[in-house]
């Protein structure tokens, strides 16, 4: 394959070209899907659609379901009191049984947030196309997969045909060089990017994260970054696979083994973007200048360093943007010029597909070990999966959180989107490691400060928004 006629390509184009089942001028391509992840909230209407047309699931062997969004994170041996949630959970159990789909439901040792279990099972692999009826499917891009969220009509299409109709996306390079300072995490990096480019810059594009700062991150940190690509408007965001990727995958339950592993490595090593490939747009960030970030507004682009002061709408020229900021500050109950550091809070949520993996919990525990959460504060720690929960318990993290006065819960999406009963009360403030600070996202009237696990844990101890660097950890980073 040394033909000089082959133009340099980005990883997105390589994956795209390898999955086009049908191409017709002026039409969207029919793109083959390698892995379809399904959950209880966005799938029931799709299965009904199949039944209405008398269709089967074309590739149950490439489909995997779990229960994460509406499932309670309390004792799993108790009945689910929310009848609607119970019905929805029962429905996916019925649908998976009827259509022959593997379900990691309640009681399965692999139950968990859909974007946590795919990678930990080794199902998420470089070069794959991965879809799910959930916008944070971009998470899987950390492995060099083209992964994006779809609507329920598309869920039905993939169930029926294992294909989707898609227009080729534009390429958006996010180059992050330099080294993150101590105490600055992947979550801070992605919040900093969003504060710079806003929440719609990525529309029509796929982000490709590159540069030495990205290369220096572990897989779980890369997942945190790719996870929030959608908050910048990009359906997908990915990172070319490297030895860190391969090391994470080796030995996972669904990862190739033996000769197949060697063959896979050959395929995967050909995936990264060619040296001379071009992008439709590039932004650069210097990681060494970044600080811990926190959001002050009602979209993830409204963030600033934790030491920052709330911006003044009067200084914004564009009337529409000015009105948006005014509205956000009114909702958040914040005044221009006010510092966020020290702002009182009611709840801390550590969890979600953004920050609920073992390394996130370890990071939070570093600041909570041997300490007590502030009086009157509610602190929820929700592992991303049953597997993460077991691993955390094996190293005693659950005891660290419990001893500090935090709640150690069962796996699920929980208070990230507050549809399972874990939610803020109207007017409450939370520091949350999740991905969205939209109005009411964590409960009607609730107000969210998005931040990293370290910032969340430090804030839990302090009882207000805190800078983890000032509080200091009680144990060294692992």
């Amino acid at each position, binding site marked *: 394959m040394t033909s000089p006629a082959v133009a340099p390509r980005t990883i997105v184009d390589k994956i795209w070209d390898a999955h086009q089942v*049908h191409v017709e001028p002026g039409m*969207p391509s*029919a793109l*083959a899907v390698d*892995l379809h992840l399904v959950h209880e*909230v*966005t799938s*029931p*209407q799709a299965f*009904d*659609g199949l039944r209405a*047309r008398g*269709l089967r699931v*074309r*590739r149950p062997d*490439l*489909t995997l379901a779990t229960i994460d*969004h*509406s499932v309670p994170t309390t004792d799993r041996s108790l009945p689910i009191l929310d009848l*609607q949630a119970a019905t*929805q959970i029962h429905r996916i159990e019925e649908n998976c049984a009827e259509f022959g789909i*593997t379900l*990691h439901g309640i009681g399965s*040792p*692999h139950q968990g947030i859909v974007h946590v279990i795919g990678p930990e*099972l080794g*199902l998420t*692999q470089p070069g794959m196309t991965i879809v799910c*009826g*959930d*916008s944070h499917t971009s998470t899987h891009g950390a492995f060099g997969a083209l992964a994006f*969220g*779809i*609507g*329920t*009509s598309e869920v*039905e*299409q993939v169930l*029926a*045909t*294992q*294909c989707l*109709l898609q227009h080729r996306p534009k390429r958006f390079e996010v180059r992050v060089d330099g080294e993150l300072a101590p105490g600055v995490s992947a979550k801070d990096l992605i919040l900093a990017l969003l504060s710079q480019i806003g*929440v*719609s810059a990525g*529309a*029509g594009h796929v982000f490709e994260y590159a540069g030495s700062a990205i290369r220096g991150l572990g897989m779980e940190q890369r997942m945190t970054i790719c996870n929030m690509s*959608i*908050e910048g*408007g990009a359906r997908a965001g990915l990172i070319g696979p490297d030895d860190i990727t391969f090391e994470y995958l080796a030995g996972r*339950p*669904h990862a190739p083994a033996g000769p197949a592993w060697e063959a896979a490595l050959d395929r995967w090593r050909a995936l990264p973007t060619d040296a001379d490939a071009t992008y439709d747009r590039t932004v650069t960030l210097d990681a060494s200048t970044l600080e811990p970030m926190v959001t002050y507004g009602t979209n993830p682009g409204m963030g600033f360093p934790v030491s920052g002061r709330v911006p003044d709408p009067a200084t914004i020229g564009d009337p*529409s943007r000015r009105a*948006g900021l005014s*509205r956000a500050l009114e909702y958040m109950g914040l005044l221009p010029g006010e510092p966020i550091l020290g702002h009182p809070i009611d709840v801390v949520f550590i969890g979600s597909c953004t920050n609920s993996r073992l390394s996130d919990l370890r990071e939070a525990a570093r600041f909570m070990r041997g300490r007590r959460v502030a009086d009157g504060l509610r602190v929820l720690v929700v592992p991303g999966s049953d597997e993460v929960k077991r691993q955390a318990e094996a190293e005693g993290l659950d005891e660290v959180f419990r001893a500090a006065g935090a709640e150690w819960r069962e796996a699920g999406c929980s208070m990230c*989107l507050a*549809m399972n009963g874990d939610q803020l009360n109207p007017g409450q403030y939370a520091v949350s490691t999740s991905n969205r600070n*939209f109005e*009411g996202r964590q409960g*009607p009237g609730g107000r969210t400060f998005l931040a990293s696990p370290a910032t969340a844990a430090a804030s839990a101890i302090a009882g207000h928004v805190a800078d983890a660097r000032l509080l200091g950890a009680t144990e060294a980073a692992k």
Partner: protein
Amino acid sequence: MTGRAPFERFSSAAVILLRDDVDTDQIIPARFLKTVSRDGLAEGLFADWRFDDAGAPRPDFVLNDPAMAGRRILVAGANFGSGSSREHAAWALVAWGFRAVVAAGFADIFRGNALKNGLLPVELGVEGHQQVVSVLAEDPSAALTVDLEAQRLGLPDGAQLTFPLDPFSRTLLLSGADELGYLLSLDGEIAAWEVSHPSPISTLARADA
């Protein structure tokens, strides 16, 4: 779900919601997503903007104005439909009675969901959007005309603003057909592709084997 009514030219006054970055959590909050049906979602549309914490209608929110009843066009700001992939957002807008959303930009997933449900995303450039806003500032009850065939939004002063749409989506909307029918027609090609591209994984294998 095969087929829906063909999308026809229509005129309607607009509901004006000039906010940027209206996310799908606002269009329909997550607690309404516990349904297993596509129906009955109009009650959740903009629920937290329509009702206060006690469940009483907020008189200053536009959809609570009785004069808005029957209006089929929503005029919003930039980046409409950002955030979650929930198709419930499109279902709720359609259930309310909307057939088109006019905005200075749409989030990708929402745009796709809208098109699959007969809800037309009318994307105008900044200038065109401003023109609509000016017309509606003058007369908030002015009728706009949505002509999908010509890909034009007609204003009462006779101005015609063109909007982009990919030809495939346009054809499907005009005929009332859906994408799945087209995908199913590719069965032979899909089968051939599957033979030449064996999958590296199987979810049916024991996960802890």
